[in-house]
């Protein structure tokens, strides 16, 4: 009798432990969804998420002569869009709103940025492409979005993007849109964003050293 009972106890323990492991595994799976999602995005272009890294190889066909030698010469329109996040004292816009580009040809365009605040402002641009599944055909060779950009008070800058559109672009896409959103980079955004937490009357910490205009 007691042998059967301890048998059963062992079995209960085993099942419980097994199920607990499954539960913990699923908790881990929730976090594994993050890289899985990114891989999935890169394959399907879900949500127009594009790679934050430079294309590793410039296409061989990047010369006009070779493209011209082919009878089929396809061009698409690339539109440029910009957004500036809150808390970012920048003017930030594309210098050209659209370009016709030949597939496979590396093209340059620029975005204009100007810091109009009386403080140094650092920004990080986040790219996005639509239609989503076109994202993986738009290769950025060099882009200001790969690094943070610092602008001194009043400084202005033309920031270049070198890109090409893959020749295997599906034929139903006529226009690609490339968008950049410029976000502020700050180590203490949280502190500076909640004025109610500052003692009344005290000068806000993050602006105190700046002169009055």
């Amino acid at each position: 009798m007691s042998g059967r009972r301890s048998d059963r106890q062992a079995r209960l323990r085993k099942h419980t432990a097994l199920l607990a492991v499954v539960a913990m595994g699923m908790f881990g799976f929730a976090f594994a969804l993050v890289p899985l999602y990114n891989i999935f995005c890169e394959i399907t272009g879900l949500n127009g998420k594009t790679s934050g890294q430079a294309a590793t190889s410039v296409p061989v066909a990047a010369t006009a002569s070779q493209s011209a030698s082919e009878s089929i010469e396809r061009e698409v329109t690339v539109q440029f869009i910009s957004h500036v996040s809150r808390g970012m004292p920048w003017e930030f816009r594309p210098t050209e709103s659209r370009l016709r580009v030949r597939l496979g040809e590396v093209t340059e365009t620029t975005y204009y940025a100007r810091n109009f605040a009386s403080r140094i402002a650092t920004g990080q641009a986040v790219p996005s492409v639509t239609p989503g599944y076109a994202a993986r055909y738009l290769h950025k060779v060099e882009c200001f979005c790969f690094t943070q950009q610092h602008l001194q008070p009043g400084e202005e800058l033309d920031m270049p993007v070198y890109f090409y559109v893959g020749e295997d672009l599906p034929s139903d896409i006529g226009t690609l849109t490339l968008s950049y959103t410029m976000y502020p980079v700050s180590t203490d955004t949280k502190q500076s964003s909640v004025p109610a937490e500052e003692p009344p009357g005290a000068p806000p910490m993050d602006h105190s050293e700046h002169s009055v205009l």
Partner: protein
Amino acid sequence: MIAHADTIPPARHPLIAWILRWILTTNHKEIGTLYLCLSFAMFIVGGAMAMVFRLELAQPGLQFVGADFYNQMVTLHGLVMVFGAVMPAFVGLANWMVPLMIGAPDMALPRLNNFSFWILPFAFFMLLSSLFMQGGAPNFGWTLYAPLSTTYGPPSTDYLIFGVHLMGISSILGAINIIVTIFNLRAPGMTLMKMPLFVWTWLITAFLLIMVMPVLAGAVTMMLTDRHFGTSFFSAAGGGDPVMFQHVFWFFGHPEVYIMILPGFGVASQIIPTFARKKLFGYHSMVYATASIAILSFVVWGHHMFTTGMPLVAELFFMYMTMLIAVPTGVKVFNWVATMWRGSMTYETPMLFALGFVVMFTIGGFSGLMLAIAPVDFQYHDTFFVVAHLHYVLYPGAIFAMMGAVYYWLPKWTGNMYNEQLGKIHFWAAVIGLNMTFFPMHFVGLAGMPRRIVDYALPYADLNLFSSVGAGILGLTQFLFLYIVVDAVRGGTGKATGQVWDGAEGLEWTLPSPAPLHSFHKPPQVD
């Protein structure tokens, strides 16, 4: 040997002894009762919140509450109803009935059982205390979409996150307990394919819980680290993606819907054969249908996100999978009708609730099928049509099934018959209230009224007033239900026999009514 709480020395003050007994109890029946009481309390709290926003929506313009408080009510109503009312109610029912139906003396892990219940009051204390905090309660909807809940959420969001963690732990422990009980404590001779369907549906539900509650815990943990520890899972500024939150959430969220409905399927499959006096039609296909619904529920989450800019391939995949769920669901409905066919039916209150469940859940299923069709979903998405759909699925699917179950087993639990006439009045009043509240929502949704808005354009005014009147009726019926249950506990309309219902089959009916605190110490033999 397990220490039973009823062996506490009687030397203590009777009130303290009584309190300690309920706090320390490891008895599955007492814990089941605790769960049921908590869930009814939460049902009233969540319902009161619904009354607040139905009152506000009765007329266009701002009358009673501000927009922010309205959003808090909407958020807490969803969370309290899902995690506080429906889930604990079914766990309570499982605690009471699973051991009785499989001939087990108790749950397999009684102390864990006590622990998983007593987590819950604290979880809901945390969640509801957020109402009294600076900045107010969470106000971003029960779906917690980032970045509204992360970057823009009020400080009380952290309490919500920890509350959800606690509820998750409770549900997972409860689910482990149920699975271990079903696998190990069945009476000799009760093979898996002889188990009552309620036990089957709960077994499958418990597996769903173990699979998806940790994913929700992961999602809210990421919210927490995004809010306070500098990660950016869901913020584009740091390289994350707000849409990913929706993917993770709905990976949990869609199976969650079936967690709330599958036990209801089980209840209907117990009640209908009893009152049709005929065996359940297609037992095997019922089991397989339940399992396939559960498996399919893991691959349909994208249908909540058709407007987020998915690629065509993904839209098609999720559309097909969602439409496919209609097949096993249809099989279940057909089987219930076939069970009734040429039976010999009587319509006591449990049967009325079971039939109300089948009819109205099917209406919810139809609107679900319509919502699955992605091109048309662009017009339905995030309108009141969705609100109508989800309440037609969940009110009959979970609440009606639950109330049917209470009427069905109440004589077994209390030893007394409830007041049949009042029960029938309760049913019809609930049917009227339910349909008045939710049916017009289909129309306002189609006409273009978005959900979760505090104020609306004039064309929707009349139907909203109608809904609000219905909601008032529906709210009042809950107190009638409470009265009937209390009345039955205090004697009702007479003693119940052990068999209670002449057509009922199953081990629980072999016990006397009320079921003794300790039952099946010697396992029954099932042939």
